């Protein structure tokens, strides 16, 4: 497949493309991150008027919400939308599509080789202003920027899977090179028709990507080690999740947790007093509200194999539990059992939703 090179920064290039798509009427709306300089905050904008794209910052390394979650609520429509997503957001969205919670049908997905995002508090504290310039340099050299989310630092899937257009950022976003857009699909070609820039068959620069990958894999090992403490077991779980306040923030920001009403908030988990009395008489003490750990175990079983490690959960946890790391780790283990990779392919069916004869030969 071909690619387009525009003589501008990657970010400007993408904004330009969105402008073009809106003005040429190829899309009805564009989904991209925006910056509100007045309050120094970021949000997602569903933009229909090209002139409003000026405050767009499509490639900003910030994730206020996982775009997959945002898209799912608007993508089931016959309106044409172009969305700029981070690789993990796109993967999350694909997982949602598999669950009928979204549709790729009228969507043009634009993603990019992602250097990872900064935690929310760097935005709140304004610290991000200093961090951003450094950030660009570091990812240019395929290194890992400081202060990014730990799961980002440990993320080896920073090259988008099944995006229509991939903007090359890692390794080649310096103005000299310009903005490189790889057109991966027919749709991409068709949509970019009439859009300026020089066509070429330029491929990714493998060296920097490789360098990044190695760095990330190393980080991942460290991360996983850090959350394992000394061996598994319930005590370790208690150590980690013991201080959970049960706000369920992790599930409400999780793109995969799409349930309107989480089972753990449903009537199934309202207990009659005899339940408590019985436990009390057996154990002499019990925690209120109950099921603090159970909630996380339950969530693990419900979604871990679809976890894309975006790190939103850790970011919103009021007591700094390394939720993301735990889930990413568990997720990879469970997914591996089925040789499954969340968000790799829409056609790939979700493990626990199908039964294959050849699964677990040893069981039979």
């Amino acid at each position, binding site marked *: 497949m071909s690619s387009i090179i525009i003589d501008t920064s990657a970010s400007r290039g993408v904004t330009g493309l969105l402008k073009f798509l809106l003005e040429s009427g190829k899309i009805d709306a564009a989904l991209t991150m925006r910056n509100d300089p007045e309050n120094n905050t970021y949000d997602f904008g569903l933009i229909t008027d090209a002139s409003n794209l000026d405050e767009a910052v499509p490639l900003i390394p910030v994730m206020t919400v996982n775009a997959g979650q945002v898209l799912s609520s608007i993508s089931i429509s*016959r309106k044409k939308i172009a969305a700029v997503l981070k690789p993990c957001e796109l993967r999350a969205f694909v997982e949602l599509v598999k669950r009928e919670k979204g549709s790729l049908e009228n969507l043009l997905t634009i993603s990019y080789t992602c250097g990872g995002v900064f935690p929310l508090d760097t935005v709140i504290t304004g610290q991000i202003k200093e961090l951003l310039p450094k950030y660009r340099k570091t990812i240019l050299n395929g290194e890992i920027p400081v202060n990014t989310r730990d799961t980002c630092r440990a993320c080896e899937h920073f090259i988008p899977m099944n995006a229509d257009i991939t903007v090359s950022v890692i390794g080649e976003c310096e103005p000299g090179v310009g903005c490189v857009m790889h057109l991966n699909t027919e749709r991409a070609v068709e949509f970019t028709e009439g859009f300026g820039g020089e066509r070429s068959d330029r491929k990714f620069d493998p060296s920097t990507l490789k360098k990044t990958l190695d760095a990330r894999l190393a980080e991942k090992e460290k991360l996983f080690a850090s959350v394992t403490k000394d061996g598994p077991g319930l005590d370790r779980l208690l150590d980690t999740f013991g201080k959970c306040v049960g706000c369920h923030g992790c599930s409400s920001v999780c793109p995969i947790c799409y349930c309107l009403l989480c089972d753990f908030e449903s*009537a199934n988990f309202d207990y009659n007093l005899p339940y408590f009395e019985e436990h009390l008489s057996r154990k002499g003490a019990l925690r209120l509200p109950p099921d603090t750990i159970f909630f996380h175990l339950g969530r693990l079983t419900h979604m871990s194999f679809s976890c894309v490690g975006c790190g939103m959960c850790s970011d919103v946890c009021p007591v700094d539990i390394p939720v993301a790391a735990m889930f990413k780790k568990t997720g990879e283990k469970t997914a591996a059992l089925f040789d499954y990779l969340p968000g790799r392919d829409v056609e790939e069916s979700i493990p626990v939703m199908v039964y294959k004869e050849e699964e677990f030969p040893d069981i039979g």
Partner: protein
Amino acid sequence: MKEFEMQESGQDRKLRAKVGVYICECGPNIAGKVDLDRIITDISELDDYQDVELVVKKYGFLCSAPGKEYLEEEINSNGFTHLVIGACSPRDHDSTFMGVCKKTDLNPYLYRIINIREHCSWVIDDKEKATVKAESYIRGGIARVLRQSELFEKPLDINPDVLIIGGGVAGMEAALSLSSDDRRVFLVEKTDRLGGVSIDLSGILPGQGEVIGKKIESVLGNGNIRVFLNTRVENVIGFLGNFEIELLSEENTEITEIMSGAIVVAAGGTLFDPRESDRYSYSGSDEVYTSLSIEKMFAGDDGAVLRSGKQPSSVALIHCVGREEKNYCSGICCSYMMKLACFFKKQSADIQVTEFYRDICLPKKNDQERFSEAQAAGVALIRIKDISLKGTNVSFERISGDKDKQSFDMVVLAPALEPSADTEYFADLLTVPLDEFGFFQEVHKMTNPVGTATDGVFIVGAAHGPKGVSDSMQFARASAGQILTRLIPGEKLIPEVAVTEISEAYCTGCGNCLEVCVYGAIYSDDSRGISVVNEAVCRGCGNCFGSCPSGALRTKHFTNTQLYREVDEALR
């Protein structure tokens, strides 16, 4: 609210929807002010809906006989899944077109009338503007109708029998007018005899004594009336057509269970206690009497005499006792005080009888005679501004402002009529609200004075408000009228269809809805810790729906989704 959505997009929505949109020209009324042809092309070209086919047409007068036939024919031949009518106010013809739908396979709740006459053509002169508005309304209607769901009337078997609470004149009158071979009446009286207060009232009507006596006989003699004396109503559950009642008899303390289709409350009233006001120095022991005790005396053989047994030589009759305290005029006292005055005069012409009154209130067309009789009999009538008693010494201020004193052998007070003691008990038992005066609150002061918020429960006699014997009987017959014309043996009742339902999954049982429901249609299921709607009682008013913070409630045919989508569409 997924589960709701699924219901709302019931079976038929799964198939391809075919929406008929019929616009009534209403002659020049709509066609003259709105460009219907443009609307028809615009709407037909709407491509907002996947899997929805739109058929858009106009017609001269849809409400006319041929119009209705045309519509029926169109619905059948096209096999519409939904129908939108652009015409006049639902007040005019909603039921007309619902009627048309009922003749076809189209569920009437999958139709919607959009008012483009009163809202558009009649109020907007600019044709362009009117057209745009009408079109947006119709688009909204389509968006909404697509989210409406089939509703079905569930006819209920009814029990024609009637429970009557209170064995006074009102209760007995109701019992007699209601009882028949196919309608039994259960008459429950808490005391040991029928007749209530009326027994003590001598000749309010000529020959009243006998009248009451006869009534009691005919009640007791009536095979279709079952009388429970010394019995109180312990518990009531149910609704119009199907009430389950527990009666507790004082003798054998066991519960009798009965069923009835309606309940008539004739709990009666009682007299204002003059002790509540210091003005009348009433003790009940000296020569100051209430009108009721005097009525009793006259009913007896030796007439109205002093405690000594002697004839009073002078009697003061004092009106409006408690009127100010209660802030209502009982409407009967003037009349019976005139009567008592005449009785005293009859008893002996020498008795000086003086009436102290504020206003003469004789609201019945024949009451005036009483007044003339009293005057003729030489009763002194003194109009006063203010009055107070020390024993039988009356000091008063005349309307002219002059102050004056007189003393009498005997003083008779006319206390206001007030609700009987157990009114609150029944209000609570039957979930009928009380009004500011403590009487039962009627559904509507003017158009439905005997009905209550709990359909099937009727209030008559002094339980409704201060009343004399004849008005009590009148109200009793009115309740009978409602029951006889609504609870017809063998026929079924069709309860409200667009009722509220509560999502078991989302309800947390906070009870907001329960508080705001005036019909007592919601109860709380403590075992599950949620609120539940009794669909047979619910009238679909939607109060509860508004009171629920988590949107666990939903009033059928008026769901948020339906309303929002209509507005969304109309506004875009």
